[in-house]
């Protein structure tokens, strides 16, 4: 095979993924039916292999199904907003509102308040934004929506940087990652250690009814968490891991694999919390060292060449190990 080309793969080998048709009907993904809601239709301008487009489609289709289509989506500025609504076109088949970069949570609070005062109690509100719009510029509005316990499900699609503006660092960018504003040069190449914030845990500190992390590596789990969140009221938060092939320097057909390695290395733990307490986590079924994950992306290339940066790889492994301990990710699964 020539360098730079890859054979098209139709399924992920070496995983424990279960084919949808092998599941009980009620456990099957909403995407497997012909009557799926299709919240975001094809024809949008997302890049090939976009994790956010995939995550948003599954999340919103699940939310639409859970609400019988009675929902309104509010969107922060960002890739998702830009690639889905180039006027006069739109990919959204549900009522959708975009206001600004930093106010999606507050706008959603306003929509929820309007619905309450109008007695339209059957209509649900979902807000969504990228990590920049959520953990940085939209953080005050997000925290305000949480502490008021407004009836909004906020979904953050985390691709660990400002991809829409050309891959700059956000507070969700992991240490050592190269971005346009954390170049892989100098004594501490890439994003530096000791920075960033863990917004799912900050959300938990608000003691809101529901907080979960999810990943496009496990779409079924994502759907289940969205469905569960939609069955509850008050402020809810789901933080979805969505690789960005362009920003991360990864092949466009590796999105799911990269996301899976993030969870199997424990760098991105999958868990659920209710009212500030962790109630469940997804155990790692086949643990991998963090370098297996890091090697898939050019943004970490400086950790491996010209020579291995043992020290930094070890610190990243420690971060993963801490997640394993915190969320008990290597426990023996209890078989039913």
């Amino acid at each position, binding site marked *: 095979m020539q360098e730079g080309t890859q054979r098209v793969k139709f399924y992920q080998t070496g995983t424990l993924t279960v084919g949808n048709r092998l599941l009980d009907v009620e456990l099957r993904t909403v995407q497997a039916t012909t009557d799926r809601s299709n919240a975001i239709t094809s024809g949008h301008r997302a890049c090939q292999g976009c994790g956010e487009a995939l995550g948003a489609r599954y999340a919103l289709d699940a939310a639409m199904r859970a609400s019988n*289509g*009675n*929902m*309104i989506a*509010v*969107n922060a500025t960002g890739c998702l*907003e*830009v690639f889905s*609504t*180039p*006027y*006069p076109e*739109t990919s*959204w*088949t*549900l*009522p*959708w*509102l*975009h*206001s*600004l970069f*930093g*106010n999606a949570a*507050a*706008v*959603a*609070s*306003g*929509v*929820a*308040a*309007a*619905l*309450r*005062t*109008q007695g339209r109690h059957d*209509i649900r509100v979902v807000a969504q934004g990228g990590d920049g719009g959520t953990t940085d510029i939209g953080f*005050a*509005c997000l*925290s*305000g929506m949480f*502490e*008021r316990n407004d009836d909004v499900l906020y979904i953050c699609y985390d691709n660990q940087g400002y991809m829409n503006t050309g891959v700059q660092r956000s507070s969700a960018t992991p240490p050592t990652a190269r971005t346009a504003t954390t170049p892989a040069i100098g004594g501490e190449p890439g994003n530096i250690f000791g920075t960033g914030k863990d917004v799912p845990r900050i959300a938990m500190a608000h003691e809101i009814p529901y907080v979960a992390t999810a990943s496009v590596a496990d779409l079924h789990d994502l759907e289940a968490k969205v469905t569960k969140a939609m069955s509850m009221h008050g402020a809810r938060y789901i933080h979805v891991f969505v690789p960005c092939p362009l920003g991360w320097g990864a092949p466009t057909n590796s999105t799911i694999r990269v996301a899976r390695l993030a969870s199997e290395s424990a760098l991105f733990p999958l868990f659920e919390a209710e009212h500030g307490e962790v109630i469940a986590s997804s155990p790692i079924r086949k643990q991998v060292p963090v370098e297996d994950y890091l090697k898939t992306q050019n943004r970490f290339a400086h950790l491996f060449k010209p020579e291995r940066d043992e020290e930094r790889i070890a610190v990243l492994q420690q971060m993963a190990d801490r997640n394993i301990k915190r969320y008990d990710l290597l426990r023996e699964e209890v078989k039913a």
Partner: protein
Amino acid sequence: MLKQIEGSRAVAEGVALCRPQVICAYPITPQTHIVEELGALVKTGELHGCEFINVESEFAALSVAIGASAAGARAYTATSSQGLLYMTEAVYNASGMGLPIVMTLGNRAIGAPINIWNDHSDAMAIRDAGWIMLFAETNQEAIDLHIQAFRLAEELSTPVMVCVDGFILTHAYEQVEMPSQKEVDHFLPPFEPAQILDPNKPITLGALVGPEAFAEVRYLAHRKQLTAMERIPALAHEFAMNFARDSGGLFHPYKTEKAKTIIVAMGSVCGTIKDVADDMREAGHSVGVIALTTFRPFPFAQLRDALKGATKIIVIEKSLTAGMGGPLAAEIKLALGKSKQTLYSVIAGLGGRPITKDSIRGIVERVAHDELPDTTFLDLNWDVVNEAVGGAHTQLIEKHTNHKPKS
């Protein structure tokens, strides 16, 4: 019903009569009493069917109002000064999306230096944001403008800001005629939004618009303002028919007929200026006043017509564009076109400095003797200025400006 109440309470009761459905509150002096009163009215149930939301910032306050308005609710908020600047991005957004939000601006200076007192710097900072901007002269007019504002906003699908001078009006106890609920309901029908977020008829609001249509969107916003120019006097007339008093409209001329000198101003200071005009007319000066109510849209043609009999025009305004002068004076100058009338710009009342009758009289007298410069800073304390000009900071600036790079 006649009531002797604080301006903020008057505004709050007037807003409550408009049956808002979502009110967002964030405290900033001097608008606090307004949202406090409204919060109490919601809590006691006097204002029912309304959500009162305590938010974490002014940016959130207007953002919540944007969401509520887009979902079809009558939305209201209030702010002042720094708060308005903090929400500026949302101010532009609300008008860009054509959301009929009504907001009270309790006018206050902008820092630094921090200052809580009244001037119009805040309103001037967002004058290009696409909102209709109305200035109340009295507490009575503040009530009445809010009632007209909701009607205007919803007719045109555009946000309206009602400017009420901080402290001078918001904290002043005045006698006001509070309309009845029946009267207001008759004037202001329930909100029927032009478009609404509805799962049965999904729409996309806030799409990305490129160069191919952006100018058209902006032009349409301008056109909407021009439509407002016609609707504002019409609504003021209808208001007068229903409530038996004159409030609102484009501006209030006072003794301008055959006046050789006309003073133009906005807000509460117009009362003081009218008193001076009365006194000076008795002393033989031919002075009239125009109290400008509608600042956006700016009534160029109407003002030109109203001012045409005067040879001298004095604009007294509570704002300053540093490096340029008075923004209102600049727009009046534009309104006058090629006319040979002399325009005097007076910057006054910044940061709450009282504008006294004596000072205004002095201005008019100096104008009568052709002694006033084009731009005057009223009652400037030259001791303070001169001390600063001769101070260390100025010396440092001089050092920098005289710096010659080594060759």
